[in-house]
């Protein structure tokens, strides 16, 4: 299979893939934004223990965390038009890209809702009590005390999710979307240099996740500057250690291996 390995093809394909980063990133950005919305909506009934809605959001989170993203892509691609046809909206003409973003959005929303729950419950109970004790209302205590702290705690969770979603977008090619992986499938058809293409593809993904990780790390340091004693001592590991201590064990900080 394929031709003799030739490193120059790796560089050539790497350059050729670069323009398609924006499609992959578009899917990531769109679906994370959508996911934040879905996730927030799904987290509220569980934080405030609203009956029925709470169960629904649990089922939502369980389903989208409990099934492979690949299956979800197909399910949504074939299912959504049918469902919307019921309310006589015809979306069969919409671009595939939109389905893909909705699918990844629903998927990441499930993780966002769990993340929000975890981050909010990781904020020490004493913080809320102190807020009440100085006379704050429930809303003031949430928006001024709990939320900013939860935000700092959730940055690594969000970072993980964004990078996992980036890696997941490599599956969008199965629906014919021309993102990085989709493009890479078309490159070696003439030259037969498959391995070079895939190495170039992996390198592009690696580059993006590396940059994203650095950016999130900066954001984390900034939001956690109040934990200076911890942050200064060592760079990333101690920040994570602090977080791991604060977070209840059952919420793993990451998607595990599922960020394929």
């Amino acid at each position, binding site marked *: 299979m*394929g031709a003799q390995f030739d490193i120059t093809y790796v560089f050539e394909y790497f350059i050729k893939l670069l323009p398609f980063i924006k499609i992959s990133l578009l899917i990531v950005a769109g679906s994370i934004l959508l996911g934040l919305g879905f996730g927030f909506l799904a987290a509220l009934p569980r934080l405030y223990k609203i009956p029925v809605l709470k169960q629904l959001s649990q089922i939502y989170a369980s389903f989208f965390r409990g099934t492979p*993203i690949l299956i979800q892509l*197909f399910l949504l691609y074939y299912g959504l038009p049918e469902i919307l046809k019921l309310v006589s909206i015809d979306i069969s003409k919409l671009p595939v890209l939109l389905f893909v973003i909705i699918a990844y959005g629903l998927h990441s929303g499930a993780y966002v809702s769990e993340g929000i729950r975890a981050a909010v419950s990781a904020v020490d109970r004493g913080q809320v009590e102190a807020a009440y004790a100085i006379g704050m209302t429930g809303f003031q205590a949430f928006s001024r005390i709990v939320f900013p702290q939860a935000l700092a705690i959730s940055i690594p969770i969000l970072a993980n999710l964004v990078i996992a979603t980036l890696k997941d977008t*490599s599956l969008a090619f199965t629906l014919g979307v021309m993102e990085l992986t989709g493009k890479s499938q078309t490159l070696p058809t003439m030259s037969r240099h498959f*391995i070079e293409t*895939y190495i170039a593809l992996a390198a592009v*993904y690696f580059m993006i*996740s590396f940059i994203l990780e650095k950016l999130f790390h900066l954001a984390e340091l900034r939001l956690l500057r109040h934990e200076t004693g911890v942050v200064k001592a060592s760079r990333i590991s101690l920040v994570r250690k602090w977080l791991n201590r604060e977070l209840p064990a059952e919420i*793993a900080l990451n998607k595990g*291996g599922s960020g394929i």
Partner: protein
Amino acid sequence: MKLDFSFLWTAFIKLLPAVPTTINITVVSVLCGFIIGTFVALSRIYKVPVLNQISTVYVTIIRGTPMLTHLMILYVGLPLLIDGLGKEFGWSFRSVSIPMIGFAYISFSITAGAYFSEVIRSGMQAVNKGQLEAAHAIGMTTPQALRRIVFPQAFAAALPNLSNSVIGMLHGSTLAFTVSVVDINAQAQIVASTNWKFFEAYLAAALVFWGLTILIERLTALLEKRVNLYNRGGVA
């Protein structure tokens, strides 16, 4: 929408023969990944020269790239390598005799190894340093201390993450379709396109995966209860 329930059931039945394939891939990649992960984690924790650096590069690269690319590179790279070496040394073994599922096994194990090493590493780091010192103080050797004191506690700490990673590998096994292995996902594709009922077929596949995932979660919860008895302090 006319959801065809009877076909949903038919699809479900037709998917069942593919379940063992999915489970095989998951189990093999989890077991191999766990072994690789343990070695990698230990060489990083104890900063074994050379191995530590190699491990770091391995983990960083694998975690920074999609699992799909690992499979693709291995799928086209391994035959090049084997046949190249074979020609050099006159082996009779040719890459065509590797079964397709073999690529999935190898590639997913490499992927899993990187993720598991991180899980194991953070589990080990969660064990208080005093535990190891106390074990040394009563005269245990380091391997004894690791085996009898540190590992059991690390396992308890890592359990939720381990479970997540196993679920991740279960879901990741759907990628095997790209190397023509017929797992649940590929079977769903076949069922869907032969009957022209895509939604029902994939819904059935989703339900199977959902069930398997919940099963793993339940088992983890049971295991956690047993393992964490000591954490609660009481004699419950």
